[in-house]
């Protein structure tokens, strides 16, 4: 060993580097989904995100998130005609010109504004290519165009849930966590990172969902998700859920350090074995004889 001090010095450095790498919060979920920001620039207001270490940890009088204005967006003069034009161009090849469905795609007449808005604003529609389950992409249309398409499809037939009114100013994140554990965690996981369902289906991550999209998904039950009608979850409860998704899920308090993807003991086990035991085995390799 010519320069024996290099290895211990290097080990200290390596521990520091690993530490810094770990400290970078793991925000991106593990799933290989689209990475675009899904319409977050379109909505006028986002829930004010509590900082990851500050606001949440201070004792408060009640479990209420600092308020935001209701996020119901008034249509920016969307016209049915414009919607029809966009629909024919982007959607009609599968759903048909009158949106009454084909062998490839379902009938959209009467599904309601919330459904159409959810699928288009999350970028799931139009589909890039057929998959078992549509994935989140950067949306193809801006807010105005999306609402135009909503208007057009709605004009073809009544029914279905309307675009919900979302406001978190009086929402309770505490109730939201409780409702989330009861209704959402079984599929999306309690940390909202999503997980696999049967046969290639999956419950998507909620880390990128906007408040309106969360509310729309609750009310319409897109794809394999069950539907939660007003008899099951009141508007207040939907707002509570939205508030918790916007805070506890999307800005989790990682008081313990790097979040490790928030998938529980799986990544923790890997870190314990590879970094913990692996690092210590390297130390053994330094200390001990190697012949």
């Amino acid at each position, binding site marked *: *060993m010519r320069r024996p001090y290099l290895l*211990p010095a290097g080990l*200290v450095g390596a521990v520091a580097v690993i530490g810094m790498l770990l400290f970078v919060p793991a925000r991106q979920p593990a799933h290989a989904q689209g990475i675009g920001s899904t319409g977050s620039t379109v909505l006028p207001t986002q829930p004010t995100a509590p900082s990851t270490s500050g606001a949440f940890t201070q004792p408060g009088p009640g479990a209420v998130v600092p308020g935001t204005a209701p996020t119901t967006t008034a249509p920016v003069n969307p016209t049915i005609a414009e919607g029809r034009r966009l629909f024919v161009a982007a959607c009609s090849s599968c759903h048909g010109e009158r949106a009454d469905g084909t062998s490839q795609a379902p009938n959209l007449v009467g599904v309601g504004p919330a459904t159409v808005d959810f699928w288009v604003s999350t970028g799931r529609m139009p589909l890039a290519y057929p998959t078992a389950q549509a994935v989140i992409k950067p949306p193809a249309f801006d807010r105005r165009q999306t609402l135009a398409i909503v208007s057009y499809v709605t004009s073809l037939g009544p029914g279905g849930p309307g675009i919900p009114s979302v406001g978190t100013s009086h929402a309770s994140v505490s109730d939201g966590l409780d409702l989330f554990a*009861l209704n959402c965690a079984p*599929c999306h996981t309690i940390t909202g990172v999503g997980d696999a369902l049967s046969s290639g*289906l999956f419950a998507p991550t909620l880390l990128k969902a906007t408040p309106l999209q969360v509310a729309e998904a609750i009310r319409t039950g897109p*794809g394999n998700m069950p539907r939660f009608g007003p008899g099951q979850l009141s508007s207040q409860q939907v707002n509570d859920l939205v508030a918790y998704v916007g805070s506890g899920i999307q800005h989790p308090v990682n008081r313990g350090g790097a979040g490790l993807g928030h998938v529980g003991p799986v990544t923790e086990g890997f870190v314990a074995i590879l970094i913990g035991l692996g690092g210590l085995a390297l130390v053994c390799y330094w200390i001990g004889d190697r012949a």
Partner: protein
Amino acid sequence: MGPQTGSVPPGEGGELAAATDPHFALITRHERRMEIMVALSFWLSIAAMVTLAVVYSLGGQPQLEGAMLGVGLGALGVGVTAWGKYLVPQGPFKQERDHLPSAPEVRQAFAESFKRADTVVGRRTVLVKLLGAAMTVFGAFLIFPLRSLGPQPKKSLDGTDWRPGARLVRADGRVVNTADLEVGGLLIVFPEGFAGSAVSQTDLIHVATDDITTQPGRQTWGPQGFLAFSRVCTHAGCPVSLYEEETQLLLCPCHQSLFNILDGAKPIFGPAPRPLPQLPLRIDDNGVIRAQAGYDEPIGPGFWERGNGPA
């Protein structure tokens, strides 16, 4: 690798005529640099520990605390180890191993000592046997207090809190009405008065009526497309909660058993061995959903006394 000053062990070894012995040579040729390196490690450790104390006194911050504790202990360890490895002779030295077994004479002596009892104790054979019996009975009694730990299961694993006519309520106790659950929805329900019950928890699912493949004898169990299945997985008892609305499957989150809702919740994939028991429902005149009866078989995972048939 020649002999150097300071390359002999501290303490009494320093007086030995071992200074020229290569076994006492250090494995580093940069002794001074190693000393500095060890000193720097100790200084780093001191600095980190002082920082840790300051961080703690100012109210604490987990990341800083952990990092400082890690650096403090790690640097201390690096210093001490480097000292032991580079600034202390490593030998190699050897030592004879002992022959582990006792010498025959010792064994003999041991046997003789032990045999003392043969004559003074062993001859009272009745007493020896009685002593053995007394110890056995005492040992057997030691099992008895375990009985105090909990009730016998008796028949309690066979049934739930569902009774004929029981109204369905949610976790918060509100009664469930047909209007509360849209087609394509799932609601967690309990018998009235037992909200939150672990054994009675039930998945209420509303499907379009024309979807159901009714099991023989269950034609009336799912009025208006309301189906109720025990939420306790028949595999390991987890709450079966993942409702795939388009494929009409229930997925257990623990071990990924899949149950076909439209076909009597039979397991179609994964380790679950039995269908989820179905709760027969009826809808009263006010639109309130009630249980026709309790489950007709024990819910949840298997157990020895369960057998195969209805309770």
